[in-house]
């Protein structure tokens, strides 16, 4: 009933967009995203996907075109990375403010300068306040599954917000892994034919979209996005459960994934592919009789505050790993969020893997040692050269 293909992360995202039967794709190439939009172009060229493919002249226009298409009632997809995502910044606010269920794959990559094509998560983290739901995946299977889930989440009447599915550049985008590909009909049934019930551009019932938001109404629209984000938490959990019933795979509770947390006093908190390495280390340590846990944050926005508190209530040494840095605060975004939620706990922040710097098993072990001995909250840059 399904097929297993050995494919890259970008192919997995493209396969998922095809399975979701998107109507419009607008995209511009950037390493390491490119192979995703190439794949989609192939699908369209071969008639495997019936979609309009707009070969835009920039990422800013890619997002603008997706907004135009989504506002006209089409299911849309795009993908980008790094500088491309930064160029979209302005339009990201507009997509969420207009409550358009656009789905985008983000191949996480460092930002210039100096120019660097390798992985960290600074690009999408820098977009955290744009009103987009952000899902960080651990592997290629989760990439495919999350893109499908993303449509179900974004198009939910209680949510109506755009979703970015973030996967680590090269580590996932260019690594082949076996990925189970569900049958197209099953996915179509799961998602349903997209027929937006909310307002969209149609000459038979003219509406004005994107008017001037005078001071009398602007704050209310912002509040509505915040409330939609809050409602999205439940929807993401529900979709994760529903997806599990249909396709027999799930990702924690949708917002977070707990790994070996039950007896662990020391817990690592991280996002993305690094969690695979952390799980490996945890299993090794377990063999030696040492219990260390992992809390994988899957949705950075909406931020799973309640789950974080609940899952970490018994942990005393908390090590937060960040593949980004908020310059001028000397902490990563996740580190800052954790410190704000876990006020009475020891939360150390580790800046790791910027611009593709390797994070080795020994680094993870060193982090565990450090957090256990640390007297108080600390920030450490791991793997820096002298």
């Amino acid at each position, binding site marked *: 009933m399904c097929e297993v293909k050995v494919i890259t992360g970008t192919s997995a995202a493209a396969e998922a967009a095809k399975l979701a039967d998107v109507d419009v794709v607008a995209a511009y190439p950037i390493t390491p995203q490119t192979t995703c939009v190439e794949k989609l172009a192939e699908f369209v060229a071969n008639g495997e996907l019936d979609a309009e493919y*707009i070969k835009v002249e920039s990422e800013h*226009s890619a997002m603008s075109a997706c907004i135009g298409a989504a506002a006209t009632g089409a299911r849309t997809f795009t993908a980008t990375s790094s500088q491309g995502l930064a160029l979209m910044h302005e339009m990201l606010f507009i997509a969420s403010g207009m409550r358009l269920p656009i789905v985008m794959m983000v191949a996480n990559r460092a930002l210039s300068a100096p120019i660097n094509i390798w992985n960290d998560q600074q690009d999408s983290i820098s977009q955290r306040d744009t009103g987009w739901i952000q899902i960080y995946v651990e592997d290629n299977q989760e990439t495919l599954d999350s893109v499908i889930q993303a449509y179900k989440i974004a198009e939910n009447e209680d949510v109506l917000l755009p979703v970015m599915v973030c996967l680590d550049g090269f580590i996932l985008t260019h690594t082949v892994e076996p990925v189970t590909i569900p049958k197209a009909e099953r996915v179509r049934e799961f998602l349903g034919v997209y027929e937006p019930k909310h307002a969209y*551009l149609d000459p038979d019932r003219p509406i004005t979209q994107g008017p*001037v938001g005078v001071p009398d109404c602007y704050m209310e629209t912002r509040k509505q996005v915040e409330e939609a984000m809050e409602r999205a938490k439940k929807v993401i959990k529900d979709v994760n459960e529903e997806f599990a019933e249909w396709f027999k795979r799930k990702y924690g509770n949708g917002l977070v994934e707990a790994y070996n947390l039950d007896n662990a006093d020391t817990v690592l908190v991280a996002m993305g592919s690094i969690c695979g390495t952390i799980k490996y280390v945890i299993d090794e340590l377990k063999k030696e009789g040492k219990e260390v846990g992992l809390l994988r944050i899957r949705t950075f926005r909406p931020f799973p505050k309640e789950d974080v508190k609940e899952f970490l209530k018994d942990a005393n040494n908390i090590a937060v790993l960040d593949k980004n840095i908020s310059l001028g605060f000397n902490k990563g975004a996740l580190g800052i969020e954790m410190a704000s939620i876990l006020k009475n706990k020891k939360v150390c922040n580790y800046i790791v893997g910027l611009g593709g710097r390797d994070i080795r098993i020994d680094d993870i072990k060193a982090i565990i040692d450090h957090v256990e001995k640390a007297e108080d909250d600390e920030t450490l840059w791991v793997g820096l050269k002298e």
Partner: protein
Amino acid sequence: MQFPREELFAPGHRGCAGCGAAIVARLLLKAAGKDTIISNATGCLEVMTTPYPETAWRVPWIHTAFENAAATASGVEAAVKALKRKRGKYKDKKINVIAIGGDGGTADIGFQSLSGAMERGHDMLYVMYDNEAYMNTGIQRSSSTPFLAATTTSPAGSKIRGEDRPKKDVAMIMAAHGIPYVATACISYPEDFIRKVKKALSIEGPKFIQVLQPCTTGWGYPPEKTIEIGRLAVETGVFPLYEIENGEFRITYKPAKRKPVREYLKMQKRYRHLTDEDIERIQKYIDEKCKLLGL
């Protein structure tokens, strides 16, 4: 010519009295009719027509940002196509996709997205309403501001005499894209403008119309003079009316005898600093341009 009576651009917008941009919108919608979707760039037109919860638009309308009316319209056009093909929506209907932006949103910051949309061959009409400056932010120069006009960022001072660069010829640049239809128009010639919009919409593919729109506030003249000033721009040869259909150039209005530019310039505050010598320079420049176009 019979103009349709129906007003798809509702009365009661917030533009200045005598605003030419409102006339552009009104005539445009009369020509296009109700099966139209508008993508509007940030600028005077957008701001004056949609202070929530009011709207002057009786057709579906979208505004996203300043520099991307064309890219947004690309998405709208692609969506209409996909919905027609995949879901049988708008089966027997032709939907006009029209992007509209000011000279700033078109010739400057929006130039890339405009060029991209035209080059890709989307079935859309782009209308540039040209008031020759950034009016919405308080009259700053754009690349479409004419030579020696004073704006707040090209003020006339003791050393510099207003805008020191000639007006960028956006219509000709669009023609160089090899699109099937390019035209210039002016709100003072409504039949001509409406005919051009209708013609453009009857052609499949990307179309571009640059329409001159006098602006009471930015140009500095009394509101009742909008139409007169527009007419003078054309009669003097400052703004020639033409169309380029499949590469074929045609003047659509030829003044019997061109009037001196002085008549046009002296009515506007933005030119009040000009000396006789300056006016001579402008006249010479216009003469050369007109000669080139056969006016």
